[in-house]
Structure formats: structure tokens, C-alpha cells
């Protein structure tokens, strides 16, 4: 913003300048051509109007008129006029200079207004840009406040959301910017004090206040800009609120979707083994062949195991969803962890080839033993389920600084790349998965690993392999 000198100063300079000029020129005896002199004085008036505005132009016109008369119209050094011609020149000069100065000043003030408007537009544009760049509400409000400080010349600017809760006036300071607290409280109560306060209504009720702290007065233009800032800030706050609302809704919808998927999946998945058990049981009752009865009884047992596994997974899942995963961390030797899982799964592993490579000198890991034991159990069960009964399984462990990785690998068919993200989601299963799983094991393994500060990932490579990476216990 171009700053101008005060009006009184401009008028004073414009009034004195023609007198000085006249006194100076009168020292040179040869210069007496009144037409040229009149042009010289007109130039002075023009300059005063351009640089000083219309007030300066008018005062330069008047003192120019008097000075011209005093120094250059016979009788000189008096303000009297003797001839009609001289009077004509003088009045003509006055009229022309008044018209010129008002015209010029009009053009000048128009240009200045246009410049100011362009500046204001630029300022509000800058504000919009910084608002759209900000990552969260607090940042946005800080941007507004800082821009108002720098460009509107406030010492400090605060942003406050005020409104009535149960009929009591509350203020939520979004950004204090260093504005004294008593001014914030005053503004929330509806006062202003030493500050300029601009308010913009919020759709949800209440107001957004921009409090500009300054010394001395605030002109209408700054006040207007502060109000425009407040309106933008209010719009940004509302946009943010509705975005948060949308996010909350989408989380709720996702929860609903999961619940619906849970119900659908549970009723279907639980019913499948039940149907198998029911038909096997009735077949046992009627079958006359002993070997057939053995076979049927075996299938009842394995269907029950499947049901049991699903229920265990559902229990784990409900614990995860309730958010009661607080891990009880302790230092656990890696071979203890792997050994426990393998001895628990011995019946399921049966006669399968197991290659176990867990070096004895691995550092212990800091984990919740029960949860991580379950996570690793799920990974091994997953490998058992998705490969033929003859396929070998490899469990190996390795370390790098601060981490131990346990890899469960098999010669299974591999998991197509497009399934990589899905397989870790609840109730989602790889498209090539064999029937019988609930689509929960990997999701649970990942949730448990994460709770202990570790992770479960699909390993890169030819074979199907999952990596369980756990933090090392520092002694």
C-alpha cells in the first residue's frame, strides 16, 4: 500500500511552493513575459495536484494566483490590479489551474483506488492460497492471523470461535497469535478495547472472531479487510468441519460394512462345517461299514476343529475391535516363541516336512507372548491350509539391528499381486485361496503384531512367504 504524507503537510507544501518560486523568479529582472510565467505556475499546480491530491492542487492554485499577482502584475509587490488585461490573465490562470488540479486529482485518486482494489484482491487471493495449503484447522487459522499481521499491519492477530453453550458465552481460541488474554476475553464478551474485532457468523451457530491488536486507530479500509479475512476464515472453518463430519460418516459406514460382512460371513462360515457334521453324523448312524464310519468320524472331528478355529478367530477379532489390545510386553527368546507354536500345532502339522532354521544366538524379542504366539500360529495355520498336505513348510528367523524377522514360507501357488492388499483385511480372502478359511487369520496376525510394535508383511519372491518382524528386547 502506497503511504501518503498527511494532508496538512501536502497542503502546506503546495501553498508555499508557488510563493518560493515567485520570489526566486522575480530576482531575475529579464523574465517578464506573463504568458510563459503563467505556464510555469500551471506546471507547479499540476505537480501539486499529481503528488498532493486535489486539496494541494487547489491551495497551489490560490497561492499561485496571489503570488503571480504580487510579483509579476503591475504594480508589482502589491495585490492590486490596474488593467483589464492583467485581470483577465489572472482570472484565466485561476480558472485553468483549478480545473486542471481537480481533473488531475480525480484521475489520480481513481488510479489509487484501482491500485488499492488490486492490492486487496491480491491479498485475499494470497489468503485463499494459504488456506488451501494448510493441513488442519489450527494451521489454517494461523495462516489467516499471520497474513493479517503482515499485510494489514497489526501487531498481533488472534482467531477465536465464540458461541453460546447452554446460554453461556464460550470462546474457543483457535490461534492466540500473542494477543493479550484480556483482549481475547473482552472480544469474546462482545467488546473491542484496543483491538479491531471482525466477526463472521458460522453456519453451525456462533461466530468466528478475528481480533487485530494494534496501537492507535484502525482505518475503514483495514477494518473492511479484517472483516473479509474473518469471512474467509469462517468459510475455511466450516469447510473443515464438514470434511471432518464426512470422514466420521465414512468411518461409521466402514464399521457398518464390516459388521454386515461379519454377520454374513459368520452365519455362512459357521453353517458350512455344521452342515458337514450333521450329514456325517447321520451317515455314521446308518453306515454298516466300519472303515466308512471311521472316515466319517474323522471328518466330523476335522470340521469341529475348523469351527473351533473360526470361533477363536472371532474372539480375537472382537478383542481387537474393542481396542483392548494393550500388550503385556516381555523379553521372549525367539526359539521359545517358534517352539511353542510348533508344539501347539503338532496335530495339524502331522507328517508334513518342517524345516526349522532359528539360530540360537538371536536376541530375544520384546512382545506380548500370548498375542504374538497367536499371530505366528495364524501364519503357520494359514500356510498349512493353503498348501497340499505333502508340501513342505519352512520357518526361519534372521536378525538385523533392532529387529528379528520370522519367515513362514511354503511352496504354495503364490498370491497374485492384485490380492496383496486384500488378504490382510477382515473377511477378505485371496481369490486363489482354498475353501475353509474365514479370512480373519492374517488380519488378526497383523493387528497383534502391530500392537507389539512389529508387523506382518508378504515377503517378496517366488515362494509364498510371510514375514513377522518383531522389535528386539534391548538388555
Amino acid at each position, binding site marked *: 500500500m502506497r503511504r501518503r504524507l498527511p494532508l496538512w503537510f501536502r497542503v502546506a507544501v503546495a501553498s508555499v511552493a508557488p510563493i518560493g518560486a515567485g520570489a526566486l523568479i522575480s530576482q531575475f529582472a529579464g523574465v517578464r513575459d506573463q504568458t510563459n510565467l503563467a505556464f510555469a505556475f500551471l506546471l507547479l499546480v499540476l505537480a501539486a495536484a499529481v503528488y498532493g491530491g486535489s486539496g494541494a492542487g487547489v491551495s497551489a492554485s490560490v497561492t499561485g494566483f496571489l503570488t503571480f499577482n504580487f510579483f509579476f502584475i503591475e504594480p508589482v509587490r502589491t495585490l492590486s490590479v490596474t488593467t483589464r488585461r492583467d485581470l483577465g490573465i489572472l482570472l484565466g490562470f485561476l480558472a485553468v489551474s483549478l480545473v486542471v488540479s481537480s481533473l488531475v486529482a480525480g484521475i489520480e485518486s481513481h488510479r489509487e483506488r484501482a491500485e488499492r482494489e488490486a492490492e486487496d484482491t491480491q491479498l485475499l487471493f494470497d489468503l485463499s492460497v494459504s488456506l488451501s495449503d494448510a493441513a488442519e484447522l489450527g494451521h489454517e487459522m494461523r495462516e489467516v492471523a499471520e497474513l493479517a499481521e503482515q499485510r494489514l499491519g497489526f501487531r498481533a492477530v488472534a482467531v477465536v470461535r465464540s458461541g453460546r453453550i447452554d446460554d453461556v458465552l464460550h470462546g474457543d481460541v483457535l490461534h492466540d497469535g500473542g494477543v493479550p488474554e484480556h483482549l481475547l476475553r473482552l472480544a469474546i464478551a462482545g467488546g473491542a478495547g484496543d483491538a479491531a474485532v471482525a466477526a463472521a457468523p458460522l453456519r453451525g451457530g456462533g461466530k468466528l472472531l478475528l481480533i487485530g491488536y494494534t496501537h492507535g486507530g484502525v482505518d475503514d479500509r483495514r477494518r473492511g479487510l479484517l472483516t473479509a479475512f474473518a469471512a474467509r476464515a469462517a468459510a475455511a472453518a466450516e469447510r473443515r468441519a464438514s470434511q471432518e463430519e464426512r470422514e466420521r460418516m465414512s468411518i461409521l459406514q466402514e464399521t457398518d460394512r464390516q459388521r454386515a460382512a461379519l454377520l454374513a460371513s459368520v452365519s455362512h462360515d459357521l453353517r458350512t462345517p455344521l452342515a458337514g457334521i450333521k450329514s456325517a453324523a447321520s451317515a455314521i448312524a446308518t453306515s454298516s461299514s466300519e472303515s466308512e464310519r471311521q472316515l466319517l468320524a474323522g471328518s466330523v472331528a476335522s470340521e469341529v476343529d475348523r469351527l473351533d478355529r473360526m470361533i477363536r478367530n472371532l474372539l480375537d477379532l472382537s478383542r481387537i475391535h474393542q481396542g483392548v489390545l494393550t500388550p503385556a510386553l*516381555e523379553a521372549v527368546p525367539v526359539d*521359545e516363541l*517358534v517352539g511353542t507354536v510348533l*508344539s501347539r500345532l503338532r496335530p495339524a502339522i502331522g507328517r508334513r516336512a518342517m524345516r526349522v532354521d532359528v539360530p540360537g544366538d538371536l536376541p530375544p524379542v520384546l512382545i506380548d507372548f500370548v498375542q504374538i504366539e497367536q499371530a505366528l500360529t495364524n501364519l503357520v495355520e494359514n500356510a498349512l491350509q493353503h498348501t497340499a498336505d505333502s508340501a513342505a513348510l519352512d520357518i526361519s528367523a534372521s536378525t538385523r539391528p533392532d529387529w528379528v524377522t520370522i519367515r513362514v514360507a511354503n511352496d504354495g501357488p503364490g498370491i497374485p499381486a492384485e490380492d496383496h492388499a486384500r488378504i490382510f483385511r477382515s473377511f477378505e480372502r485371496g481369490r486363489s485361496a482354498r475353501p475353509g478359511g474365514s479370512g480373519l487369520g492374517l488380519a488378526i496376525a497383523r493387528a497383534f503384531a502391530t500392537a507389539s510394535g512389529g508387523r506382518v508383511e508378504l515377503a517378496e519372491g517366488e515362494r509364498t512367504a510371510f514375514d513377522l518382524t518383531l522389535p528386539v528386547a534391548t538388555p
Partner: protein
Amino acid sequence: MSTVAVVDDEHAIRQALRSALAAAGYEAVEAADGPAAVDLVATTAPDIVVLDLGLPGYDGVEVVRRIRSFSDVPIIILSVLDRDTDKIRALDAGADDYVTKPFSVDELLARVRAALRRLESVSPSSARVRIGRATVDLAQRSVEVAGEPVRLTPTQWELLSEFVANPGRLLTHKHLISAVWGGESGSEASSLRIYVSNLRRILEDVPANPKHLLTEVGAGYRLIGVEPAD
């Protein structure tokens, strides 16, 4: 013929166990709630008790406590997965072993046989026993692995001899901590894990795939496959 007391409020379970036990040559007596279970054990003096934890009347843990006030009969608990804390309370109250529901009858019969066998061989061991590749001499307090002597720390030795004295038996964390450290503090639980892991590296061919010193998740440890060395 040994008598097995079956305590469960589920009719189907009692029925299945009755026929399986009969087929295996045991006589079954039954009770369906807590007070009846205590009466049954007091009046029939069975050789072993198979006890469900979730019972009407008072629960299985209380039944264990009351039976232990007058009898040392082996007790095998039937527990469900989401009642892990009850299982540990029952074991600490004096139960000998547990089987998680749903279980196969074969699994339960194996536990019954093992408990009865432990009852018969009261003197736990000859002086020398073999556990996999290791030979333990209790009198000499020495361990050899593949013919080579291995040095144990005093705590490792305390732990190993507690396992060897109770072959095949589930030993809870609390039991082992009080046997080895003599206290009841909880901070030893983590050290216990480390000590067991160290023993496993001595006894097992592949410590990460143990055949003898097994972890029972959330309950304790069990040493199996202990044989006389001579």
C-alpha cells in the same frame, strides 16, 4: 479296573466320555454340578477326576479347592479357550493337567493314562534318566549331551531337577517359580522363560521345534519323553 469321575453339566459330553471310557476299560461315575462333584469324590474315591470348569453350583476352581482339602486324587480340567484365567487358577489350586474343549477322546484318554502312570511310579526316577540326546544323573548332579558333560548353573539345575521329578506333568509358572526361587514374585516370570529357553538349547536337537520341553501357552511347561537311562 480304575474308576474315573466325570464331572460336566453337558449331557452329551458325559455320554461320549462314558462310552469311550468303558471301551478303554475304565469305569465311569458321573456328576453334573459342583456340590455333587465333591460328594462323588468323597463317597466313591475315584482313581482320577475329569472336571469341567464351568459348573452350576460352585465352579470348577472351587471344586478343585474342596477336593484338595481331603484328597490327592489326580484332577484333569476341561477348559474352554476364553476362560484361560480360570484354567490357571484351577491349576494353581491343585489340578494336575488340563485339556482344552473341544478335545478328542484320544487326547483325554492319553492324559488320563499318563496321570495314572505317574501315580504308580511314585519314586520318580532311577538315579540316571535320558531326555532325548541328554543324560541326567540326579545323584551326581551332572548332565551329559552326546557323551560330553555340560555345566549347568545352580538355577538351571534346580529347574531341570523339578522337571525331571515331575515327568509328563504340567508345571505352572507359579509352581516353577516357587520351586526354583522359593518366592511368589511376578518378576521371575520373564526370567523363567529365559531359563527354560536355555534348558531347551541343552536338551533339544532343534530348540525351535522342541520334542521334550514343551510350552503350554498361558499355563506353564511340561517335560515329556523322560526315560530311565540304565
